[in-house]
């Protein structure tokens, strides 16, 4: 079933509302509790045309691609758009859509407190969760508190399953390529949680392989496991990504096992503040470096590939210090910049090959 067919079934068979959600962090459980299916907009496969007349060329391809999707009319069926306050580019793109573009899709916003966190950050985050719930409640009726509690537990369960899969990958026991792995993990960007949960369980049931001690192992850091060409190249070179520090993947993954307080609001709050450090949340360099080192150690990785989306300020600012921190510990790294929807250039391919050869 294509993504489009899947979404149609969700609407027709389950009466679900579909929301387009921009990157990155948002309380999906609240949407689920309102019978809303969040469909994340990271890298729609569209050539940029209309977006160019609204955005300067120095805006990242994630935002350009998201706006292109909205302007192309392909997202006209959406019941709402949710913009988490992730970075300057998303912030202004959200305001552009809400204030200037008259797309007739209701817009919602979700704010995060920025690190360093204090007591006020926790209270504020909780207030934001409730504000989103109440904004949705005004349109669709209040969510059943029992339903929310179930969805929070389901979210934690999904995180646990993903952590298991990441754990196997770390040990080199998953018999799937980098491409297959991320294709599966990324289905969480649009599947209803029941379906995604089952998908992950079947993925876990796939036959395991023996760890290959000689395999070249790396950590991938950045925004997305994209473009596909990069993952394919790593597969061709026999490189395994044993862990990632990606905004769209592990930085949204709760530590396992998840900890339940049994009050859905408190659980959601607790979940957010226990997420791994992230550039968009203003986590300190020290925290980010420690997280990377932990991944490297656990996955016995030989190096880190930083794949930054061109013009992504939050990532680009941290890069020099992260790389310097790794260098001091004798861990090689390579930094490349890519546009999400574009094929790999020959030059980039050569750089990645040289890096792999060096660490291999």
């Amino acid at each position, binding site marked *: 079933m294509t993504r489009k067919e899947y979404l149609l079934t969700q609407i027709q068979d389950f009466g679900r509302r579909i929301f387009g959600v921009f990157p990155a962090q948002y309380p999906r459980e609240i949407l689920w509790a309102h019978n809303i299916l969040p469909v994340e907009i990271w890298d729609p496969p569209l050539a940029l045309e209309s977006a160019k*007349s*609204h*955005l*300067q060329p*120095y*805006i990242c391809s994630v935002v350009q691609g998201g706006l292109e999707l909205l302007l192309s009319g392909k997202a006209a069926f959406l019941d709402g758009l949710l*913009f988490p*306050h992730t*970075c*300057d*580019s998303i*912030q*202004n*793109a*959200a*305001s*552009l859509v*809400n*204030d*200037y*573009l008259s797309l007739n899709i209701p*817009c919602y*916003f979700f*704010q995060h*407190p*920025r*690190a*360093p966190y*204090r*007591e*006020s*950050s926790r*209270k*504020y985050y909780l*207030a934001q969760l409730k*504000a989103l719930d109440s904004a949705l409640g005004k349109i669709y009726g209040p969510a059943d508190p029992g339903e929310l509690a179930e969805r929070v537990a389901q979210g934690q369960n999904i995180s646990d399953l993903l952590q298991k899969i990441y754990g196997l990958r770390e040990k080199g026991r998953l018999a799937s390529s980098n491409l297959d792995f991320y294709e599966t993990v990324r289905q969480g960007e649009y599947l209803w949680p029941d379906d995604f949960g089952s998908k992950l369980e079947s993925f876990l049931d796939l036959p395991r392989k023996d760890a290959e001690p000689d395999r070249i192992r790396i950590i991938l850091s950045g925004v997305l496991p994209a473009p596909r060409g990069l993952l394919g190249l790593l597969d061709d070179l026999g490189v395994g990504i044993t862990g990632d520090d990606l905004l769209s993947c592990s930085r949204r993954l709760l530590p396992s096992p998840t900890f339940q307080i049994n009050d859905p609001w408190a659980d959601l709050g607790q979940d957010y503040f226990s997420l791994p450090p992230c*550039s*968009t949340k*203003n986590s*300190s*360099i*020290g925290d980010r470096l420690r997280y990377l080192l932990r991944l490297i150690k656990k996955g016995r990785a030989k190096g880190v590939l930083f794949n930054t989306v*061109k*013009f992504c*300020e*939050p990532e*680009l*600012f*941290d*890069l*020099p*210090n992260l*790389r*310097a921190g790794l260098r001091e510990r004798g861990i090689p790294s390579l*930094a490349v*910049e890519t546009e999400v929807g574009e094929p790999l250039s020959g030059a980039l391919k050569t750089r990645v090959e040289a890096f792999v050869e060096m660490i291999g």
Partner: protein
Amino acid sequence: MSLPAKLRYGFMKDYGAPWLLSLRDRRRAAMRKPRRANPLFGPPLKCSGRLKEIMTRHYLLARFASGAKPVAWVSSGAPVELLRALDFYTVYPENHGALCGAQRMGPEICAAAEERGYNQDLCSYARIDLGHAFSGRTPAGSLPRPDVLFCSNNICQTVMYWYKELAHLWGAPLVLFDTPFNFGEVSEGDISYMKAQTKEIIPQLEKIAGREFSESRFQKVVDLSQESAGLWGRILETLKTRPAPATIFDAFVHLAPIVSLRGLPVALDYYAILLKELEERAAQGIAAVPGEKKRLMWDNIAIWYKIRDFAELFAARGCNFVAATYTNAWAETIHLLDRSKPWESMARAYSLVILNNNLRHRLRLMTAMAREYGVDGLVIHSARSCKPYSVGQYDIKRLMMDRLGLPSVVIEADITDFRNFSEEQARTRLEAFFEGLGV
């Protein structure tokens, strides 16, 4: 803080700086060749000399501040009143960036950051600041090492990432005043969050400053900021007069005290003098651009390395810039500060600044300014460094035309890094713009 450093600072403040500045002035006066008046402009502002003196003194004393006073590096939109009440010496990296930009040193200082791996696409104020930290290069002599980095994300999220780098580099604590972006109206919840933060921030700052926060002192500072912002607003309003007694290029320069010295008596005193001079010029019909034909509005931060060139280019066509969203930013909300409810008013004043507000607000503001200042055209600087200021401008151009029939031009450039400026492309676009305006 050490006693010798305090004595040195006190001596420089009371004797050294005044003596050095007067020596410099005498030398300059002796060497100065009589300057021919530029026929494109009216008589220069008399108080420009005073401004230079104030800012030179500020940067000069900064060199002696370490050890004598707690030193804070501050972002332009942060509530500096908290620091003033604790007697911090404040350094504004953005102001320093503008200074480097105006002296055409942007690319050379940025390069020092780029050599360390900072990408050329990052905000050039940040690159200048980091480049200065790595290389020591600056036209300002030297900047004191920070004891704290104090920033607010009410201007951009970028400034947080930048200050986080500085915190790592200098090993100094980062104190953030987190201002949620106003996608709609500012909410009571947001105000409570910001108020709560001030209560958390003060003990942190007290520890660094080594002294107690005094509410009465804080209220005095709040008054000074509020009054200075009020005067700055009135200064800008003198440009509503036809012909305008100054240009926005003047305002870009005279903005420095409200950005960097806000909350200090010197800023208030200076703006009282400037306002008086401008009111007199307006009353006497003294034009900044004699024969003013068209009145323009500027959007975004200045192109610092082009101020002089652009001032001449436009004046040669009889065009004067009489309004700018950028200079207006320090008049728009800081006057909301209110000593009777300092915490709440501070949260509102700093939350409602233009860059922390949605684009609907920006369009409303620009429409009102265009009407009030009798604007005939709009020049939009699409600044590669500054995404929060620039994203949305293409639509603003369209909407200002639809709503007001206001012609406009977009110049793709950067605030300080002239490697991102194409003279030829700008000239071509401007020629077409001038033609449309009929000048």
